[in-house]
């Protein structure tokens, strides 16, 4: 029984060879004489996609240095003073048990004692030690750090990854097999990454564990189902899925069929090989560290190699160390160190670091003064006044420090850096105009960043390291 589904697919197929969705713009549909009622309906249905796809990146800045971004997000907020802005002289009430700083391969830059791996790579990255937004709420601060917009507007802006999915992905004919915005492995779920751009721009969250014997990417690699069975049951589905024959030329079903086809391109096609970490040598896997975070870093490199423009690693574990702080740091710090150092070294050795931005931070830092009172018993609390960010590659210089904090790491001493400055710099290196208009569902004036926004502070982009 031939199904209508495959008939409908023909014209969609001609233009959608990659992960671009049914890449038929309204204009294109009309040009092909697709003028029937169904066609108009489809064009209308494609409306939001088409609007997004046609958004002109107004006034492109200079040529892009960065082709891809890997963001390591330290959810919960990592202490800055125990890590990348050590204050060994601040006294035990501030340092707790992590009182040592170690030298790096760049004279004058010191790191906290948990980061010997990064210390050997310090020439490859720079540290912003004066990041500030003074917001101490997880959700609002995370929103601020990943959108650059102040929380509290009527509509939620998209995260930087979703903006990349739009302006470096779908709107420029991205043809990759894998969606342009990937999250390893779990979405953070505290704010909508796609914002008002809608579900198409949500990240593809892999699920699974790249450190397991098989990285079972949710929806791509299914446990216990052979390729023969995959093919056979797809065939069964297509034979039984006769609904379309009752509704010839239904535009919704045509869209569904196109989406299904693209899913199968990944399930049975070449896309899944990108996630096959077992193709890497054991020695390299060891260097990244045989733990979830280390292997996530390795998976991120494979995704970037495959052309994915934006990868976010949501650190597998939290940094919200109100209590049990020092034990958590002792456990997670070395893994963060090993994975990040392994990533920077590997990207550099493969010549990918010049075109790949790596940035790593949480939504805020943690109180420099340890809270020894119960129930915290030696914990650190939320601290948005100042904290540290690591940036590398894609046009960011290495071996530098931007800004400084006071003797105890409590306030910015020089050169504040606001979220808009950090994100604006990343956009600039990626060739994205920060003033570009975003397609807003109600046609309101919305831009990638809005330095003029009421209360949005800026102290300028990070020209000193670009």
């Amino acid at each position, binding site marked *: *029984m031939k199904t209508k*589904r495959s008939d409908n697919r023909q014209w969609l197929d001609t233009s959608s060879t990659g*992960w671009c*969705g049914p890449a038929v713009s309204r204009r294109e549909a009309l040009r092909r004489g697709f003028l029937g*009622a*169904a066609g108009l309906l489809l064009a209308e249905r494609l409306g939001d996609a088409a609007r997004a796809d046609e958004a002109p990146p107004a006034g492109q800045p200079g040529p892009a240095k960065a082709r891809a971004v890997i963001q390591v997000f330290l959810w919960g907020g990592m202490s800055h003073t125990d890590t990348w802005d050590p204050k060994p002289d601040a006294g035990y009430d501030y340092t707790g048990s992590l009182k040592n700083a170690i030298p790096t391969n760049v004279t004058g830059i010191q790191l906290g004692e948990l980061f010997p791996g990064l210390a050997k790579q310090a020439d490859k990255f720079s540290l912003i030690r004066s990041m500030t937004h003074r917001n101490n709420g*997880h*959700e*609002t601060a995370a929103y601020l750090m990943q959108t650059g917009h102040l*929380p*509290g*507007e*009527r*509509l*939620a802006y998209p995260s930087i990854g979703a903006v990349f999915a739009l302006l470096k992905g779908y709107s420029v004919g991205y043809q990759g097999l894998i*969606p342009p915005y990937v999250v390893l492995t779990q*979405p953070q*779920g505290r*704010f*909508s990454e796609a914002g008002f751009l*809608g*579900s*198409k721009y*949500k990240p593809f969250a892999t*699920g699974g564990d790249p450190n397991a014997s098989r990285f079972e990417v*949710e*929806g791509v690699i*299914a*446990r216990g*189902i052979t390729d*023969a069975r*995959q093919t*056979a*049951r*797809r065939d*069964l*589905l297509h*034979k*039984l*899925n*006769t*609904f*379309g*024959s*009752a*509704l010839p*030329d*239904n535009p*919704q079903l045509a869209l*569904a069929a196109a*989406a*299904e086809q*693209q*899913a199968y391109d*990944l*399930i049975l096609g070449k896309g899944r090989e990108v996630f096959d970490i077992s193709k890497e040598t054991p020695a390299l896997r060891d260097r990244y560290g045989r733990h979830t975070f280390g292997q996530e870093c390795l998976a991120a490199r494979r995704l970037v190699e495959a052309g994915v423009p934006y990868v976010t690693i949501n650190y597998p574990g939290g940094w919200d160390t109100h209590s049990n702080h020092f034990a958590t740091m002792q456990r997670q710090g070395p893994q963060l160190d090993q994975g990040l150092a392994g990533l920077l070294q590997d990207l550099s050795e493969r010549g990918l670091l010049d075109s790949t931005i790596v940035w790593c931070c949480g939504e805020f830092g943690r109180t420099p003064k340890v809270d020894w009172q119960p129930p915290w018993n030696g914990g650190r609390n939320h601290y948005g006044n100042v904290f540290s960010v690591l940036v590398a590659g894609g046009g960011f210089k290495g071996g530098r420090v931007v800004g400084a904090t006071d003797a105890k790491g409590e306030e910015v001493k020089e050169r504040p850096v606001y979220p808009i400055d950090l994100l604006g710099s990343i956009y600039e290196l990626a060739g994205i105009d920060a003033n570009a208009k975003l397609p807003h*569902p*109600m046609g*309101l004036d919305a831009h990638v960043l809005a330095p003029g926004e*009421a209360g949005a502070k800026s102290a300028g982009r990070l020209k000193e390291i670009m």
Partner: protein
Amino acid sequence: MLTLLRPAARSGATGVPRAFVRPATALWLVLTVSRAALGDGAAAEPAANIFESTACTTPVSPLDKIVGRRLAKLGIQPACCSDAVFVRRAFLDVIGTLPTAEETRAFLQDQAPHKRQALVDRLLDRPEFADYWAMKWGDLLRIKAEFPVNLWPNAAQAYHHWVRTALRDNQPYDQFVRALLTSNGSNFRVGPVNFYRALQNRTPEGIATAVALTFMGSRAELWPTNTLSGMASFFEQLSYKPTREWKEEIVFWDPDKELAPAGSNAPLPAATNSAVRPAASAAAPAPPARHAAAFPDGARLKRLPPGRDPREVFADWLITPRNPWFTANIVNRIWSWLLGRGIVHEPDDIRPDNPPSNPELLAYLQQELVASRYDLKHIYRLILTSRTYQVTARNPKPQAPSGAALFAFYPLRRLEAEVLIDAINKVTGASDLYTSAIPEPFTFIPENKPAIALPDGSITSPFLELFGRPARATGMENERVNRPVPAQWMHLLNSSHIQRKLEGNRRLKELLKTRPQPQAVIEELYLTILARLPTAAEVQTIEAYTKSGVVKSWEVWTDLSWALINSDEFLYRH
């Protein structure tokens, strides 16, 4: 052949009007249906016969006449849906829940002439009605503990409980809106005050914008500035203040409130006194408003009446049978929720240059709402028992471009995220566990609670996120997106989440124990998943699959369930 024609002829003879059915079509359909019923049909029947009904037994209502007149002018003859389509559609549309195989079978076998009406009545009384529509209202009223509205779990629960109770009790709509607009008190205890709490922008203009959107179906962003500031004046004396309870706030009328400068986006300062000011102290004259208070229709007030909460003055203007915004908004929304498209479309974009596609229809529903004293279930019933609602999903005249806007067919819509996961769980005997670790205290939802009953938009799952559950940030209808994206198909086709449910299918295991004959299993799976019986051709396809040698015995059944769950017929309302 004559005998086969009898049922249709009889339905004509009973005097049931047969508008919507062309005689020629009816004849052809009867022939094919009957052939299938007789088991004569290795050949594939045209699929239409499963979905369309030969005889429309639903009486023509005044509503149908209004819709029918416009369609007749265009020469459009809609077709009536079959009983199998209707039972599934009614369950999904009224209670957001699939019928069980038993419920479907009982409905299909029921010979009563008015069984569709009776089903609608039963569904309107089910507890899932309150769950499902509280979910819908939760989107519009932004019931969410977390970012961006930051209600906090206690308030989200109180808000949802109040809304669900109102819907369960079919509280008259005028009272429902008045409570949301004029309540005072703790947002942990007085559910409806959270209408003012669940806002990102708590300036008078921000509040007015939300009120206009929610209860007038109007987007104040498109208004002249003066209109918005005039309406905002009614919300200038609204205050919020914290209590000793973590994150609790009192929302109250504060006649002495200091006003932030006009145009400021900052939240207004909270009152400093420790108790809610009794209304008596309102004898003091109200401070001058920043703008003259004016209703959105242009009527101005010289000054707000002293001693009266201006929100009540506004509610008096809004909530009256004479205010077309008020009645049009709600009947148009209900219409669009049930028929997939507003008479004014988008349903929350009512404005003069976006006229209703059928003004007479809108007016009729508005009159019915007022005449029934704002009985929302009366409007549901009017729509659900009409022929207009019971047409098929097939566009009867694709060349007529306005068919969709005039409701010539029932438009396909993918099941909403919550409805879809509930349906998958129901047909596989599985459940999902919903928790929310943010903010503390963590929220754990008892297993077996369906997703449509989740009170708080912050309680979510990767599945709900992926399938377009709205962020509940804006209260706009288009925030919920049911557009297909490939990642959704990857999840349905190939995720461990779905595969685990299929492989652990307790219902299927029971079934195989009690009725192991393949034919019976196929029939039960079709009734359970698609709410209809399989055709002969489908049975043949499945038998061929069992003999293909690719899969073993149990896998045949998981793969069949998998295929049905991934079929368009399952994924869409139709």
